[in-house]
């Protein structure tokens, strides 16, 4: 068994080109069997979207601005959700810097959700209801979570595994851009870029390295999130 290389998976989100179109949101629902909750449950604050577009209003009429920030699990290096899990359902993969969620260990204490500063963990209050034929759309690569289980964005770990295995079978290193999570695949403006920060030549590294526009969400909390955001830029037009 060959040793798999160390990785630092990361997502770079270019806020200048995110148009809030929700293509990533639906792609994620389809890829990861994330249930759609009813209107009643959304109203109670139990909507489930592993990735969501947060919209921030800035300013007042007539100088109003709306900003979009796609928010998914930030895959923190020092994740606040991890140490509080009593059953190691929420744990860290040191090799690839992923924040894993083991569904069949989860006993539903919701401590992790409570400790999660980004509010990207979702609890199944009920069994998911894929009515009638909708069961046919389920992705067989991903477990359907039952009631009482916490779930969250995995950076499409099933796609990472598949690509790693394919590279292994072909006896070659994994290429940059080979692993494409569903949200990144769908994004029409290519605002989302996924890659390995350990690879000095990857597009993600190139975008993050020395970029004046980059920031991370709630960086001051010290959780070392692995999702980088690039602020909107400015055009060279005399306003």
């Amino acid at each position, binding site marked *: *068994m060959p040793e798999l290389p160390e990785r630092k998976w990361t997502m770079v989100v270019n806020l200048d080109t995110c148009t809030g179109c929700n293509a990533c949101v639906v792609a994620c629902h389809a890829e990861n069997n994330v249930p759609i909750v009813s209107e009643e449950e959304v109203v109670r604050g139990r909507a489930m*979207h592993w990735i969501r577009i947060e919209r921030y209003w800035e300013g007042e009429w007539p100088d109003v601005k709306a900003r979009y920030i796609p928010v998914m699990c930030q895959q923190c290096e020092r994740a606040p959700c991890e140490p509080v899990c009593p059953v190691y359902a929420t744990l860290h993969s040191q090799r690839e810097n992923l924040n894993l969620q083991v569904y069949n260990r989860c006993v539903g204490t919701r401590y992790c959700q409570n400790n999660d500063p980004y509010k990207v963990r979702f609890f199944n209050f009920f069994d998911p209801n894929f009515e009638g034929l909708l069961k046919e759309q389920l992705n*067989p690569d991903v477990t359907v979570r039952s009631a009482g289980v916490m779930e969250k964005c995995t950076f499409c770990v099933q796609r990472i*595994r598949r690509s790693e295995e394919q590279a292994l*079978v072909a006896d070659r290193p994994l290429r940059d851009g080979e692993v494409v999570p569903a949200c990144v695949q*769908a994004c*029409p403006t290519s605002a989302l870029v996924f890659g390995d920060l350990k690879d000095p030549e990857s597009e993600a590294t190139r975008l993050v390295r020395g970029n004046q526009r980059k920031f991370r969400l709630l960086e001051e909390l010290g959780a070392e999130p692995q999702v980088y955001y690039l602020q909107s830029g400015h*055009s060279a*037009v005399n*306003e």
Partner: protein
Amino acid sequence: MTAQRISRRDFLRISAAGAALSVLTGCQNPRRWVTLEPFVSPPEQQLAGVPTWYASTCRQCPAGCGIVARIMNGRAVKIEGNPAHPLNRGKLCARGQAGLQVLYNPDRLQGPVRQEGRGSRQFQPLSWDDALLSLVSKLQAAGDKVVFWLGSTISGHLYDLFQRFASAINAPDPLVFDLYTAFNGYPTLIQANQGQLPAYELGQADVVFSFGADFLGAWLSSTRYGIEFGEFRNQSLGKRGYLVQFEPRMSATGAKADRWLPLRPGAEGLVAQAIARLIADQGAGPTDRVERARALAADVDVGSIAEASGISAEELGRLAQIFAQYDRPLAIPGVPLAGKDQAAGIIAAVQVLNLIAGVAGQPGGQELPPAAPGLLLKRPAISSMERVRQVIDQMAGGQVGALVVYGANPAYELPDQAGFAGALAKVPFVVSSTPIIDETAVLADLILPDRTYLESWGYTVVTPGFGEMIVSSQQPVVGPVFDNRSLADVLLAVSREIPLAAGGLPWADEVAFLKESLGQLAGSEDPERFQADFQQHGGWWQKTAPALEAPETSPEKARPLSPINFLGDEQEYPYYLHLFMPTLLSDGRGASQPWLQGSPDTNTTISWQTWVEISPVTAKRLGVKQGDIVRVTSPAGELEAPVYLYPALRPDTIAIPLGQGHTDFGRYAQNRGSNPIHLLDVEAGGAGWVTPRVRITPTGKRAALATFENQVGVTEGFINEAFPGR
């Protein structure tokens, strides 16, 4: 798989590697199952755990994006963009991805049904043979008085068959009308651009002025314009395009703009004329542009336009300077609701800016579509509102013996004032082919559910192709889920029984017809080989030299536009109404798909509901809060819905999204929200919609909005007094 043969030893080695890996990761390794599958008789190209991808064409809007469907064990589990397709280059919007829920919708009809008594909703299943016999006898009885009412997302070959059928029985040419194209102004855009939809290649533009075009939303192609927008912001050498958006309510496109200018509804064309005038008067920019501006700009008074639009004269002057100065400016006309009655004039006014800039017909500017390839391939011709009015009048006058509805839902999509339901009652026989019972099917006698697009054959001539000639292929990605027949086969079967039609449609079945239609694209290639490649790669495309002819806008001076007409007295109805098409539900066809219902609207984050957007300034004056249910009354109709305080909206305007308010159309759509289309009127004898003014009355009822930020539901639970029954 490579062409190389895999020896037994290799095979074992692969499986050993797979097994070892699965132990390491603790995850199920799907590949392991491949080695364990007993090779009894697996379906063609299907191995358990190994996905197969089939290329096809999306039909959730008329754009014609290429898709690939991921098939696992005969089930479609994911739709992605086709990376080889030149229109959408592997990308796909939310609606396109939700296509799986068209295929696997739990409310799909499982076979033909008959309705005893229209509106009774008592549907009796019947066999295909009986259904076809009934259809034949009714069509024969109707003679040449048959109207075919089609949706814009129809496959080219089926449109072709409908046309041939109609002409064989001497019936009028099929009508193509749905809300998506009508509301988005397709007929006017097509008219203004030599019979085809234009393409705006903003990917290479320096400055884009968008006059109410929500091109990143549900307009011409949200995927392609998304790609263009990504390029627009990330041009070579670090150049970043500059976007100015004129619209009364901030759309997603407006939110991404560098300048958002909230002008008065309907003033888009006036502002475009003022900018053209100012380029001529200020003399800013290159001399050739100034000369063209002097020749083309209408003689308008900038001061009065500033007043009418709410954008100051100084601001207009600055904008004119920006537009004239940069190398590649581009103006995009949207066709918002206000001013639909003079949409042609507004589009022409915006077009003049492109002519002045010299970008009309240039790559990176406004591309003019090349001629559609091949004479035999068909593209549905979108009908005008005038034609719709005529057909409704004929129906009401008893001049229509049978109505065949395919891919459209006029009973939902037309305002009550258009009188469609009343006219339909005068038609002796109505047949719909919707896969889910919708509002029109409830008023029909017979429903022959078509296969959904993921189970069907077809092609789409993609226009605009953004500089390429594209014919996108459609093939079944899975076997039919139910015993439903393709409507093309139904038409061919029926035509064999009707003497007049029999000669016009001699093909044995759909595939034979499709092969013959596509044969012309094969050229010197072996037709069978071509057909296989066509299906496998998702279509046929060819780079063409961009057409360089400027559009035939009159070279003489444009005439000043007249002010927009609004329906309703200013005192009685103090607010402008701005309806908009939401990105996910679009014209309401998305409402049956839970992924689209349950995903949040971008700017409000509301899912599942209809809301009324009111400026916080106006709300304060009216004394209404977020979630208060208000009644919105126009001279044509009224609705009730909860208020969302929308900061980026003119205080004199009320905005409401389309898409909800279905009385039928499956469990996810039914009895949810309101359909604001009934607030509109269709101009009697005219070619467009009339934009009404509205008034707002608080009702004292409340609803908890299904938003991200909503606190009411967390503390008080679910409240929606707009629907006490639910």
